[in-house]
């Protein structure tokens, strides 16, 4: 197993492991995040080892807070790293736009882990565009090895310019594995001092106007650096030039033999002269990049401005797609333009009907209980299930169907307020504990403030489960030599003055359904807190008490209500009989509480 604290040598590292090592080789003293795939492993690693290298690390309540905290550290001269998944940058965008005006003293890297193909995301936005919007430099690694090496390189850029740098990755960098050579570790400086400079750090209009000019001047300087940067380099010769960055480089390098490649790693501002020099004299140019034509449109503009009449192919010419991540197959779309490596013919898919295998809530997942209870309480009422982002999103699947509207973290609760005013339907907003702290409190307060009629169900499973069970304010923290008490969600909600509040145990489906009935009958803002720890998290901590359910075959009347309401994967149907898969069952007893005949018992 890889030891990223290793003194030297090499290892087969996941991109996120390599990046974490890069932080240590760059002497980063402050790191903050809100978890999100494909960036999450970095936080999980830092949780374990940041203090070992003298780095401060925290899981902040959301990305905005994480960004602001890192910005302050960097303004105080401490090398800082703030990281998140792509949609997290939307949350952090407000401070980002203005921090660019202030700049930093210690280097600040914002890692945006984008997710082309939406492997674990609700959209596939291309965050490279943020570098242009904020007018900050950007680097894009292509492989795990490069991801590590670009961390110190990006800090040098950040500090030379005094600007935050966007360090942009994608799933196939964060979750790729490759051979990484360990370099020397640098000493982390975790404390600095904030030297006041009102004109820079207080962007009242008069100062902001001037800082915008300063920012534009710094961008000119950044472009000069980009022109000379070894991160932007030409590989190979030939009449066909390919301009590429990020993961796409790997497919170009392997799949298009005989082309000349301009590999861009410093991708904002682009080295316009270097690009023009590369294009001049070429027969044709291909731009290969995932998602938006970020490079391509700039290349087209550069050609127009410099009067270069070399044809440019890519997305705008219809050869390469704008949707989804690239792969070696994507390169084959260029076959009319260049020599492409053609692979062997794939086997046909076999002619048998295969059952699907969508991800599902785990056996004994408490979310199952509260969904079953809610469905029972709702009955035929006309409700809109506003859901949110987390494991509980899987409630969209049968038999629950408890998700009608999902946009973003905290969005379900906000939308519930809108539905309550704009329709006569009853909005029910499901929100996880981590999501509640992230973005759930403002909509709850707004609901009370504006007299919305809605029910908010807080699914408090004592973890940020979906992204790998990180701690959140509701669990307290206990790592890196810092211990804090859990925040009490019930007390927080009560302080808002909601019209109804009950805490239920979702394993007791009957009692939970009764509480949901009372909540739905409330005229005003009602909140139900469904509190029960995620069993997977308990198991990870070796805190799960082993218990088991058993079906009494004589008492069972084969009504299959247990399967239709809880649908726990530990319940198996063989023929007409229901039995328990002992390997999966955790003995939570949810099925016990829905069986009309009391045929299921928790044994041992």
């Amino acid at each position, binding site marked *: 197993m890889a030891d990223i604290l290793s003194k030297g040598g090499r290892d087969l590292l996941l991109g996120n492991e390599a990046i974490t090592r890069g932080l240590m080789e760059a002497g980063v003293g402050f790191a903050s995040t809100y978890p999100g795939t494909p960036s999450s492993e970095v936080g999980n690693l830092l949780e374990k080892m940041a203090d070992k290298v003298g780095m401060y690390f925290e899981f902040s309540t959301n990305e905005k807070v994480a960004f602001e905290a890192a910005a302050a550290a960097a303004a105080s001269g401490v090398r800082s790293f703030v990281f998140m998944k792509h949609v997290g940058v939307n949350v952090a965008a407000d401070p980002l736009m203005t921090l660019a005006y202030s700049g930093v003293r210690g280097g600040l890297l914002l890692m945006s882990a984008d997710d082309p193909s939406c492997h674990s995301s609700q959209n596939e936005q291309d965050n490279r565009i943020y570098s242009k919007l904020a007018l900050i430099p950007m680097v894009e690694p292509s492989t795990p090895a490069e991801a590590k090496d670009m961390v110190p390189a990006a800090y040098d850029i950040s500090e030379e310019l005094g600007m935050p740098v966007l360090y942009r990755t994608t799933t196939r960098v964060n979750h790729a594995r490759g051979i990484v050579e360990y370099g020397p570790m640098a000493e982390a400086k975790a404390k600095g001092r904030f030297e006041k400079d009102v004109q820079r750090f207080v962007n009242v209009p008069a100062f902001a106007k001037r800082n915008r000019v300063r920012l534009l001047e710094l961008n000119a300087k950044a472009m000069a650096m980009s022109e000379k940067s070894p991160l932007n380099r030409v590989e190979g010769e030939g009449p066909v030039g390919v301009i590429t960055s990020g993961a796409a480089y790997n497919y170009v390098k392997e799949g298009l033999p005989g082309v000349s490649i301009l590999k861009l790693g410093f991708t904002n501002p682009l080295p316009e002269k270097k690009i023009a020099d590369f294009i001049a004299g070429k027969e044709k140019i291909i731009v290969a990049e995932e998602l938006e034509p970020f490079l391509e449109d700039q290349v087209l503009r550069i050609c127009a401005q410099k009067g270069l009449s070399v044809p440019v192919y890519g997305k705008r010419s219809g050869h390469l797609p704008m949707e989804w991540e690239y792969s070696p197959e994507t390169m084959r779309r260029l076959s009319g333009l260049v020599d492409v490596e053609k692979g062997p013919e794939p086997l046909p898919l076999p002619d048998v009907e295969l059952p699907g295998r969508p*991800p599902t809530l785990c056996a004994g997942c408490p979310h199952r209980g509260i969904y079953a209870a809610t469905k029972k309480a709702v009955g035929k009422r006309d409700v809109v299930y506003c859901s949110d982002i987390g494991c509980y999103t899987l409630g969209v699947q049968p038999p629950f169907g408890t998700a009608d509207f999902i946009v973003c973290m905290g969005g379900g609760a906000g939308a519930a307020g809108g539905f309550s005013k704009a329709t006569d339907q009853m909005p029910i907003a499901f929100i996880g504990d981590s999501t509640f702290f992230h973005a759930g409190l403002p909509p709850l307060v707004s609901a009370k403030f504006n007299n919305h009629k809605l029910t908010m169900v807080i699914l408090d499973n004592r973890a940020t489960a979906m992204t790998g069970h990180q701690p959140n304010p509701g669990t307290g923290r206990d790592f890196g030599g810092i211990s804090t008490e859990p925040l009490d969600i019930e007390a927080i909600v009560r302080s808002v003055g909601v019209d109804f509040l009950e805490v239920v145990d979702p394993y007791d489906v009957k009692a939970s359904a009764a509480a949901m009935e009372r909540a739905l009958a409330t005229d005003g803002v009602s909140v139900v807190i469904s509190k029960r720890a995620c069993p997977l998290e308990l198991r990870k901590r070796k805190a799960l008490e082993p218990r088991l359910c058993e079906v009494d075959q004589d008492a069972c009347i084969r009504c299959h209500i247990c399967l239709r309401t809880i649908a726990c994967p530990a319940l198996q149907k063989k023929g007409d009989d229901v039995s328990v898969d002992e390997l999966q069952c955790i003995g939570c007893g949810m099925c016990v509480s829905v069986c009309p005949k009391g045929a299921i018992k928790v044994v041992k």
Partner: protein
Amino acid sequence: MKYSIQIVGVGGQGVLLASMVLGTAAMEAGHRVAMSEVHGMAQRGGTVLCTLRFGDGVHSPLEAAGGADLLMGFEPVETCRNLNLANKDTKVLMNLDPVYPSMVAAGFEEYPKIDDLVKAVSDVTDNLVTIDATSIAIEAGKAVTANAVMIGAVAAAEGFPLGKDLLKDALVANVPKKFVDLNLKAFEMGYEYMSSKRKRA
């Protein structure tokens, strides 16, 4: 030389560990290595797919459909679902032990007969080797060592470019200390299985 392995299975079957073992061995053999893995949803019972590529000029962590030299199927339905990763010359190693998707377990969907799945695959390729890796693993001492059985089998497969000793070392380096012996036993049993299959063929 360039070699591509696609490993498919279900969360919890040890697909990631198997890819780490094979990847480590490839690295130790002095090859360039590029891998990719699917994270996240795998934990919730979804499909897992790992790609491992090594050899001269390897850059891409992904492989095109049809590009695999070896397809390791840890689960029969997943092997079939991903058969287009293979071509007619690809070695296909298919574990016959099913993991039922939740809708199958709950009786809402049917799991095909294993024989039908085997037939469907052998209808389109002559390079299928089936293995009861889970039974062999149980015989070795623990069902979870099925991945070591699979690696052992691969080590004995015709034309597999990584040596047996390298693979064993990589296995030892990647499993917890107290399970080393168990895993090595499972590995050897997988190796034996494939060797005797080849002798018979």
